[in-house]
């Protein structure tokens, strides 16, 4: 099993690729069909965010095990303009591009763990995870 799947995000077809790979990885790890859809949706939102604000970036997918839990880890990185006010960006309804602004808060609602590291001019790294219990 590969350690990490790296998907460059430079065009909108990459958004589709990223979410499909994410779904496949989740399926491989035994996540339910419902959870696969949820993970794919979260990846879709984050990948689109990269395109919209940073124009380019990458998404890294991997699996981790923690005791009797297994998780899908999604790390989305870009060197874009960054987010000046992270807490505000995580609030529902906030958007600078006039869109629905659901990218970050929406993805956060879908995933179990969610972390954003960003600052103005410093790019953005979003790390999100979804866990499931392993049945031996």
């Amino acid at each position: 099993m590969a350690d990490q799947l790296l998907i460059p995000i430079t065009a909108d077809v990459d958004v589709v690729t990223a979410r499909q790979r994410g779904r496949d990885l989740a399926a491989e790890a035994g996540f339910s069909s419902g959870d696969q859809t949820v993970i794919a949706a979260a990846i879709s939102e984050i990948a689109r965010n990269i395109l919209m604000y940073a124009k380019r970036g990458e998404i890294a997918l991997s699996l981790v095990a923690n005791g009797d839990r297994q998780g899908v880890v999604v790390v989305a990185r870009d060197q874009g303009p960054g987010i000046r006010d992270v807490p505000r960006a995580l609030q529902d309804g906030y958007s600078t591009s006039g869109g629905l602004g659901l990218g970050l808060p929406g993805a956060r609602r879908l995933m179990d763990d969610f972390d954003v590291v960003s600052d103005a001019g410093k790019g953005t790294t979003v790390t999100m995870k979804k866990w499931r219990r392993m049945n031996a």
Partner: protein
Amino acid sequence: MEVPILKQGHYLIASIQSALTDADLSQLREALIERVGRFRARGVIVDVTALDVMDSFAVRTLRDIAHMARLRGAETVIVGIQPEVAFAMVQLGLTLKGVSTALDLEEGLAFLNIQTQLRIDRGPGRLDRG
């Protein structure tokens, strides 16, 4: 990828066959709006059965389609949302409010028939979809 759009009587049916990029969705929106105007369609059905993910862009686009179609006198129904997709959507906070939905093509057509009939009769809807 271009989405095939069929004309069935006064209705337009767009059947999505596979995963669509944002550009594909925008293209679909333009194509539908153009045809609604050209054929003076009374109803639009967008079949999303093949979509395994519906994210905020897809929802936004569908809403745009419904809104613009209504401005041109056509009702829009989205059909075929998969159970898991629906669940993921509501968790994401996407509700497609203001857009009619139905289980499948058959239900969608039945709904449009009632809607267009009602508009002719000018009576209130029995099942009111907000």
